[in-house]
């Protein structure tokens, strides 16, 4: 059976049906418990009759971007009611393009039909959305305060006394609910007799319950289905009238049609008219606000609602244009030289209007100064705009950015990063911009790009991130390195082992020996992120940077850091800069070259697979061609590989608590808060300095390892895995916790206590990955290793003892004077800096300013380093000797800052000042490193020593 299916898979290149349970197990000892544990839920969930939910989203060219928030995230959004089975998962299709569907069973029918009508609906909503704001305003004016904070009173379950008031006038309210049409297919087919989609999707029962008449009646809500989205949101009352869905006015005539346009799980705005007949309303708001919108970033990634964000930056001049330098004089058309342009705002239009300047300068300046143009500055509406240039072939990429967001000395770095990302994604700028079907994708890409640069704070809603630390984002994002989280060695070893096991591709169903045919892809390597921190990397540096540039431009790292991702699957072909540089021709024109007979050199194509689960994200680089089989056309993601990555991530979940522990551990090296050094902080400085690290340590120690979370997910998945043996109608709930939790009793026998946390992995391996037939591939750990656990425990205690005894202090002297640091390992492409949590612990009024200042300063320092790396590698290949030497190579650069507390009111005494150094140092020997540090002025430090100590602690 397996043979047959693999063959089918090779043919179709996308189906993922593989029934593993029928497979012969080459592993000897099989026990029930281990079977359940080691077979991942993802596996069994997607087996046979059920296909992964992202499959619909695969685009024609094989690309996939699928993002689903975890139920935990939505719980946070809904912020009430305990988790129930029906908590909707949420995903939205990334592109409106028709997907390649492998028609399977009738269960997809509904989705199909809805997909067809979706664009229409979106368009309709967009048109209506334009009128939305004025109309709402008039409503609010007319109807006396349409507050968003609605009292939550449901007639049927009112409790407590309320001081009420009687509202006589009709009263409009907006309610956001999550609905998931995908659930319909599995529960029951929507029947129009039973109230149709309105009841099935929303849980709203209409008057009479005898179906809808098509005469355009008002939709008066007669009842609510228990546990339905409508009842859970607690704002929809019986007696309300449903007026509009997503600002589309609805009546009984069109409601079914409108609802059927919703194809995927999403957040829907319902406008309800309430209080007609003198409904008793709360005057107080007893509950917290029930609905909060999904974070802007997620909405942006989903590709919805970008207009509002775009409007908020419309006044800031920014633009990207791809212009053709070769003008066709035969047929002069308006704007024919513009191959691509984004955005379409007034300010951008002004920049577009002067594109003649850019073209002329690019043409001419080489003759004037003897070099290609790099940047220019111009004053637009009293705002200085820097314009960066990148010439490729006969085309010119022009990017305009306001100078207060991107300083001139950093512009080049931004452009280099952008160009590289586009090359990674499309092979060359030409193929990125000149293919028409890329345009919507590029729009989305650049929308993210500009949002990231212009208002990064809007994208993240984590309270810890300081507002408007633009320099910080700029500096850290554009370092040719990734943020690294140092882990205790034992955890690190485990993580690396798990990754290596995955990369060895030693899965039973993937080995060539087993099937006697070439595998689809060779795994080149992978890297693993936890909450946006790189914790393991098995990729060469350049490949890592390629991958990470992609992730960064799509904000995948901050996504994982801020919210638990239910499921993220990204698949796309990438053009690795390291490899495709010499043979860029062949990689861009594979379609033609594969058709030619005879010898061709390497036809390797590379694919990037990113899978995110909760806070984990793993990026895998796959190679097709070479020793794997050739990739034809544009293959979509292969379920086997996706599942393998998921399995890996699930396996790693057992380590989550250990990593969390590391994140919540007191910072090593320990940091000081700038405010402690100023008396105006109102706190006793000595006290703060003395107590804080101890406090931190205490809290870390006291914090229970919470066995509930440890391994819970693993067991839960195992649970659903077990259950998955019988066809589960609840499949689409995917990884909702409830299912697993309900079954935890069954095989939670070995529910680990805090001490045995780590052995979940070990024992999983030692018990053998029997029944699942190598899906859980821990070949090395097949035999119980008597030393494994012991050594782990030993290292644990050692580490803890170490932690308790001494907190690493980097600076010399009595007081710790280190405020902040960044160490970049150029060779490995990683950098370490205090974690977000460490930073937020040091909250104060001055400290965030100091951090911002530090990053701004780092921009300048690094620029000085870059300038001095002579002879600079000319980006266009030509190398001409420098006639000037400038300042020469800068090895070390420091700036002393002085700060005064704000609002110093005491007139008699002068404001106290605090001075601190920001020092950057570039070391080329023995390992190229860059080191940026910020410390108090009181002790003159020798930064070399600090650099050494810090890099010593960086265990790789």
């Amino acid at each position, binding site marked *: 059976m397996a043979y047959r299916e693999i063959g089918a898979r090779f043919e179709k290149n996308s189906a993922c049906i593989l029934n593993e349970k029928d497979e012969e197990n080459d592993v000897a000892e099989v026990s029930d418990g281990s079977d359940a544990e080691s077979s991942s839920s993802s596996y069994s969930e997607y087996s046979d009759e059920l296909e992964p939910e992202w499959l619909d989203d695969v685009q024609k060219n094989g690309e996939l971007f699928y993002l689903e928030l975890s139920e935990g995230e939505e719980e946070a959004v809904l912020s009430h009611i305990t988790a129930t089975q029906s908590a909707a998962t949420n995903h939205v299709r990334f592109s409106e393009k028709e997907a390649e569907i492998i028609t399977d069973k009738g269960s997809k029918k509904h989705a199909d039909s809805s997909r067809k009508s979706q664009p229409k609906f979106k368009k309709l909503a967009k048109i209506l959305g334009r009128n939305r704001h004025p109309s709402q305003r008039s409503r609010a004016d007319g109807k006396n305060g349409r507050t968003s904070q609605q009292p939550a009173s449901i007639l049927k379950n009112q409790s407590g006394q309320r001081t009420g008031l009687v509202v006589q006038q009709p009263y409009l309210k907006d309610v956001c609910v999550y609905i998931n049409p995908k659930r319909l297919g599995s529960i029951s087919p929507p029947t129009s007799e039973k109230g149709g989609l309105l009841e099935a999707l929303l849980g709203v029962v209409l008057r009479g319950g005898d179906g809808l008449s098509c005469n355009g009646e008002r939709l008066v809500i007669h009842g609510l289905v228990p546990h339905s989205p409508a009842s859970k949101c607690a704002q929809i009352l019986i007696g309300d009238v449903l007026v509009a869905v997503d600002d589309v006015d609805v009546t009984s005539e069109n409601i079914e049609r409108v609802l059927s346009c919703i194809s995927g799980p999403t957040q829907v705005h319902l406008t309800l008219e309430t209080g007609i007949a003198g409904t008793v309303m709360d005057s107080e708001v007893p509950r917290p606000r029930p609905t909060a919108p999904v974070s802007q970033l997620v909405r942006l990634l989903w590709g919805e609602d970008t207009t509002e964000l775009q409007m908020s930056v419309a006044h800031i001049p920014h633009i990207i244009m791809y212009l053709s330098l070769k003008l066709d004089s035969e047929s002069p058309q308006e704007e024919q030289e513009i191959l691509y342009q984004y955005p379409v705002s007034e300010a951008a239009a002004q920049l577009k209007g002067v594109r003649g300047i850019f073209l002329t300068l690019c043409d001419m300046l080489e003759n004037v100064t003897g070099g290609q143009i790099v940047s220019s500055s111009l004053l637009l509406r009293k705002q200085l705009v820097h314009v960066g240039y990148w010439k490729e072939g006969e085309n010119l990429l022009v990017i305009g950015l306001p100078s207060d967001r991107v300083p001139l000395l950093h512009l080049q770095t931004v452009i280099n990063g952008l160009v590289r990302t586009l090359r990674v994604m499309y092979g060359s700028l030409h193929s990125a911009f000149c293919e028409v079907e890329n345009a919507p994708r590029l729009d989305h890409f650049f929308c993210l790009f500009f949002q990231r640069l212009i208002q990064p704070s809007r994208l993240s809603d984590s309270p810890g991130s300081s507002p408007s630390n633009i320099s910080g984002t700029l500096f850290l994002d554009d370092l040719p390195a990734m943020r690294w989280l140092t882990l205790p060695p034992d955890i690190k070893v485990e993580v690396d082992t798990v990754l290596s096991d995955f990369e060895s591709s030693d899965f039973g169903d993937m080995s060539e020996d087993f099937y006697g045919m070439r595998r689809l892809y060779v795994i080149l390597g992978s890297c693993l992120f936890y909450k946006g921190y790189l914790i393991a990397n098995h990729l060469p540096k350049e490949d890592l940077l390629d991958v990470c540039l992609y992730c960064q431009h799509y904000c995948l790292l901050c996504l994982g850091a801020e919210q638990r991702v239910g499921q993220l699957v990204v698949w796309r072909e990438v053009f690795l800069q390291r490899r495709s540089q010499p043979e860029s021709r062949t990689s861009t024109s594979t379609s033609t070259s594969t058709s030619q007979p005879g010898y061709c050199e390497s036809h390797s194509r590379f694919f990037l697979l990113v899978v995110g689960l909760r806070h984990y994200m793993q990026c895998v680089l796959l190679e097709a061609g070479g020793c794997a089989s050739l990739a034809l056309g544009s293959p979509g993601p292969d379920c086997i590989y996706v599942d393998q990555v998921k399995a890996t991530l699930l396996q790693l979940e057992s380590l989550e608590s250990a990593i969390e522990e590391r994140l919540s551990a007191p910072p090593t090296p320990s940091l000081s808060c700038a405010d402690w050094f100023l008396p105006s902080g109102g706190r006793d400085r000595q006290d703060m300095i003395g107590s804080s690290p101890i406090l931190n340590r205490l809290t870390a120690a006291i914090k229970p390892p919470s066995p509930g979370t440890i391994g819970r997910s693993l067991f839960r998945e195992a649970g659903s895995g077990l259950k998955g043996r019988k066809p589960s109608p609840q499949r689409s709930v995917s990884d909702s916790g409830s299912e697993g939790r309900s079954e935890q009793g069954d095989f939670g026998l070995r529910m680990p206590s805090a001490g045995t946390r780590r052995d979940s992995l070990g024992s999983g391996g030692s018990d053998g990955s029997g029944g699942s037939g190598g899906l859980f591939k821990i070949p090395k750990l097949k035999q119980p290793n008597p030393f494994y656990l012991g050594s782990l425990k030993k290292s644990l205690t050692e580490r803890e003892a170490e932690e308790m005894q001494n907190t690493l202090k980097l600076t010399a002297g009595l007081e710790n004077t280190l405020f902040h640091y960044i160490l970049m390992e150029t060779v490995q492409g990683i950098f370490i800096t205090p974690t977000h949590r460490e930073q937020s612990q040091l909250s104060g009024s001055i400290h965030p300013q100091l951090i911002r200042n530090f990053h701004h300063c780092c921009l*300048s320092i690094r620029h000085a380093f870059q300038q001095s790396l002579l002879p600079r590698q000319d980006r266009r290949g030509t190398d001409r000797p420098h006639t000037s030497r400038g*300042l020469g190579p800068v*090895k070390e*650069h420091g700036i002393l800052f002085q700060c005064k507390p704000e609002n110093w009111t005491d007139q008699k005494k002068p404001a106290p000042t605090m001075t601190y150094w920001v020092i950057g140092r570039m070391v080329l020997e023995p390992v190229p490193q860059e080191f940026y540090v910020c410390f108090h002025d009181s002790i003159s430090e020798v930064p070399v020593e600090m650099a050494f100590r810090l890099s010593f602690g960086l265990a790789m």
Partner: protein
Amino acid sequence: MFSIPSSLGMLHSQSVQLLCLTASSGVPLFCRGSTKQLPFSIIGSLNGVHMFGTGHDAALSCCETERGGRVLWRVFHDSLMLIGISSNADVSELHLRRLLENAWNCMVLVLGLDELANTRNVERLKRELRSCYRLIDMLLERGMDDRDGDRGLMGDLTHCADCILFPQADLLQETLDAFTRAAESEFGCLLVRGRLAVATEKWWRLAPQELVLLSALANLPPGKTSCDCPVFLPQGSPNVALRLLCFQLLPGAIACVLCGPRPSLYHVENEQVCRFWSPVVENLRSCLDQAKRSALSPSVGLRRDVLALLLINRESRRSVESLGHACSKATPLLSPARRWELLRLFYTFAATRYFSSEESPSSERPTAELLHEEFSAGFTHLPVHCYLVTDECKCYAVQTPQHQLFLLTDLSVPTFALRSVATHTLDAVTTATGF
């Protein structure tokens, strides 16, 4: 000499070009700084892009090309457009910007604002502008050329008057005051090797840019011992001409007086110069001797490892530059030219990034401030010191409310000691000279 080979040096000195065109019609007026003139089509397009932008409400300010080439556009008084072009990475944006401002001020100084702002006859203006060439060429060569005479003058870059400090300045000051009074003026100064040694109180009140230009103008061409030229002060009296009388007292020592129409050059030269200056001629000689070594009085004890320093008084906008004694044995000695070059570069580096320019916003165009980015505006806290360690030397800059000190030291100075070296030097110089 460790400096660049001569062939490259030639390129070096010619790497900055200055174009002047009428802003409205784009007629080229002059082009200085290069033996090889740019083709007319290029000049036309350089002007054209800017004009095109102005028409679309987008004022083009600056361009940067690979390997540090730069083009800078400025329009002055809506009448003249100056375009600065450099193909040399050592010419910073600040340098080029200052160059254009100075060139404009030069033209105002020589021709008056009225003449420039209300151009009636382009051909006549073209001819008249020739009289500015000498001054403009001198500015173009500043910091580019290795000519002995100008070495170490940085006023064009810092917009501070280059000064020289003497221990026996009182006598010279009295003499100058008396001499100026006798010439029926209140504005007088004594220049020693291009630097202001002493000046009357009124002279110090002139704008720093004017002081820099007047000092340059008073730098007589060889062979002349006196001159009388009409000058318009770009800030003080842009439309009413004054007379600048310059007298060479000794080679390298020049007395200048700004006066109205009254005393003739002949009169002052024959009667007053000898009468006032011959008694102090020995004093002047010793000053000139000292000036050959350093602009600082010998009473200032500089550390042996100080290579060069630039001290700016932020209030009075005066500056002193000096080379150190530099007798380090450990590292190969940097040539004086390279040291001056490094000092200029370091000043530019620190001033553009950390120490914001504190010039009074130029009266003529408030928007001129917007045309370049102030990187230092992005700092939330005030930068007070900064240092650089390079292959050749270590640089340290200190900013206090009163002073800015830019110091180059030998590599043998430990980095952690730089700060104390710098602060001690600052203390030593300011207490010894009262600068």
